[in-house]
């Protein structure tokens, strides 16, 4: 019987079933490694509320790419806000810098637009806007509103100030010749300076249109005005009519200025008309005081230098002048009335810059030393309107710049009609003070006395006697004329006198040389004889 041999085969050492856990292990290791490699840092974002934030669901997006997810939402330690802890991707690391912005994107309905409608289905998410800083940051403060302009957007960011809150608000359009070139980013009111502050952004390349001479004005709504030519209606774009906005440009007659740096401050004017009335940015306030009536001098009146307008009157500081007088203990003494004026270098053909203002201030300081004075002149004889004139008076008393409150004062001088009026008044007062009645009475008495003297017979004969005397005097003078007998006799007598004096001189000479000549004869003096020389 054949023997059947059992075939011995080697059994497998590792069961195939182990492939499954091995595969799972490799996959797990891959996943761990992938997770480790893609995982970024943890960051914290502070928000006012947790509206729209859900742990493990709310994502961080940048350009619609997931950059992380909110892991935890908790109240902050002051309990006045929330902190969202976010696990970021490694890809987001370069974006986590100091000025990076975060805000919650939800559906918003505004005046100008509706945004975030897609979040109604997908849920809110946090948008990331990278900054331009070089400093890394892990803790951020979330924005309440999405920024209107990305932090790294090319363009120019400026500040505007206005002394009244117009209809311009954040989000409004900035126009240039009616074309949208930027937007208003923020609007705040500062109680310290009582000004409304705006931050605007001009997109590139339109920011090149901004220079130091441009002016910004409000073009919100519709501006209507009436004049001799009828009604005028001015509007901006439809956006600005409905939602407000502002525009800018260089006013007519002003040269383009230099480049401006970011965050430079400009004034926001109410209208272009307001700019035309006050077209210059730079100017200096001065005070001029007058010791006479300022009737007819109203705010806005011109300040001129030799007929050229260089500024305008701001207002009469009557109240302040009285206060200063009371503080100085001089109440009741008739203090001068101070007038605040505003002098602008741009009106003097100088560039409208701070450097020009310095030049003008220095010119005025030196000018006052050389006789520059302010005076009040009558601009219109019919209406009595007055203006301030600046001019040089070299003969004026020496003076220097002074101070009144926080303003510099320019010394004044009285000229023109004011001076004439004062002189006429002074003369009339002097005449009024004269004792005219007594003088006239005395004069009448004197005239009566004179009349009685003239009526006297001897007085009436006086002219006849005077004529006779004059005639005699003429006769006497004519008798002494060169060709008269008296003159001839006089000349002859003088000649004889001269000869006698010569003889006397000769005699005294002889006696001085020879005193005994009176008794003893002396030899007569012999004159030397000129003799013809023999040649």
């Amino acid at each position, binding site marked *: 019987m054949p023997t059947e041999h059992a075939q011995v085969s080697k059994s497998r050492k590792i069961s195939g079933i182990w492939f499954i856990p091995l595969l799972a292990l490799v996959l797990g290791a891959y996943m761990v490694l992938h997770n480790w490699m893609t995982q970024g840092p943890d960051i914290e974002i502070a928000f006012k509320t947790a509206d729209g934030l859900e742990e493990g669901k709310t994502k961080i997006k940048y350009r619609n790419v997931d950059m992380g997810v909110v892991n935890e939402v908790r109240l902050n330690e002051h309990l006045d806000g929330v902190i969202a802890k976010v696990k970021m991707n490694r890809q987001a690391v370069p974006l986590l810098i100091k000025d990076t912005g975060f805000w919650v994107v939800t559906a918003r309905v505004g005046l100008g637009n509706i945004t975030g409608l897609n979040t109604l289905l997908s849920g809110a998410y946090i948008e990331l806007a990278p900054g331009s800083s070089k400093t890394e940051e892990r803790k951020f403060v979330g924005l309440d509103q999405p920024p209107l302009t990305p932090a790294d957007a090319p363009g120019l960011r400026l500040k505007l100030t206005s002394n009244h809150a117009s209809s311009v608000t954040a989000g409004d359009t900035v126009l240039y010749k009616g074309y949208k070139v930027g937007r208003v980013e923020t609007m705040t009111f500062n109680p310290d300076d009582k000004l409304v502050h705006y931050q605007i952004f001009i997109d590139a390349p339109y920011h090149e249109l901004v220079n130091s001479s441009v002016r910004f004005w409000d073009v919100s709504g519709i501006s209507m005005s009436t004049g001799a030519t009828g009604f005028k209606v001015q509007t901006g774009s439809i956006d600005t009519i409905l939602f407000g906005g502002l525009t800018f440009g260089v006013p007519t007659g002003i040269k383009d200025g230099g480049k401006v740096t970011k965050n430079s401050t400009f004034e926001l004017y109410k209208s272009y008309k307001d700019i035309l009335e006050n077209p210059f940015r730079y100017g200096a306030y001065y005070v001029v005081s007058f010791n006479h009536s300022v009737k007819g001098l109203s705010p806005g009146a011109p300040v001129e230098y030799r007929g050229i307008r260089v500024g305008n009157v701001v207002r009469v500081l009557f109240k302040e002048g009285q206060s200063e007088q009371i503080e100085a203990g001089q109440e009741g003494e008739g203090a001068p009335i101070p007038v605040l004026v505003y002098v602008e270098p741009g009106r003097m053909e100088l560039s409208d810059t701070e450097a020009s203002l310095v030049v003008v201030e220095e010119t005025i300081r030196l000018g006052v030393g050389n006789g520059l004075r302010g005076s009040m002149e009558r601009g219109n004889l019919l209406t009595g309107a007055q203006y301030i004139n600046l001019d040089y008076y070299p003969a004026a008393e020496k003076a220097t710049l002074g101070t009144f409150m926080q303003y510099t004062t320019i010394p004044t001088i009285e000229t023109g009609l004011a001076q004439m009026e004062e002189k006429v008044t002074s003369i009339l007062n002097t005449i009024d003070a004269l004792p005219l009645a007594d003088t006239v009475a005395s004069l009448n008495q004197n005239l009566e006395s004179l009349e009685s003297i003239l009526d006297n017979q001897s007085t009436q004969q006086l002219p006849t006697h005077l004529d006779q005397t004059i005639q005699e005097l003429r006769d006497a003078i004519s008798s002494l004329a060169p060709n008269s007998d008296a003159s001839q006799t006089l000349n002859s007598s003088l*000649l004889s006198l*001269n*000869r006698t004096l*010569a003889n006397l001189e*000769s005699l005294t000479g002889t006696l001085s040389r020879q005193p005994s*000549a*009176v*008794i*003893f*004869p*002396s030899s*007569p*003096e*012999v*004159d*030397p*004889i*000129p*003799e*013809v*020389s023999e040649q």
Partner: protein
Amino acid sequence: MKVACLLLVMLLSGCASQAVEPSYYLLRSNQDLPSSKLSPSVDFALGTIEIAPYLNQLGLVIDIADSQIRPAVNHLWAEPIYDGVRTLLTADIAKANGQELMPAKLSKDATVVNIRIDKLDGTLDGRAQIVAYWWLVRNDEVIDLNRFSKSRALSADGYSAMVDAETALLEELAKKIAASLVPPPHK
């Protein structure tokens, strides 16, 4: 008594001495001045004639050395030398120009001739000398200025010849002045 008689004799003897009689001289032009009708000059007038103060005396002056003069005691001018010089010069200028120079105050628009005599005397070596200046003034402006300086030998010894020589020098000066009086072109 004897002393008184002696003094009387001496006094009488003094009075008995003989005095020298002085001679008088006159400065007049030697030229013939015939009778004729004279016309006043309208263009020129006579202004001032200044005589050096040392000449302003009766005695004729002799220059006896440098800067030393001696006025004669017995040879005298018959009139003040100023009158003599003025008379001689006006007469000779009038003769040379044919027109009489009137006083400046009578001819207000005329050019005025002013004369100054700095020297007019004789010397012991028989010469007479003169130094004179004249200048013309028109509208308060000097338009011409001249000097005349000359000496002349005496024709004989003595003061009479000296007066003749001085007269001749003054005549020569008058001619020079007359020659310088060129009328301006009339408008």
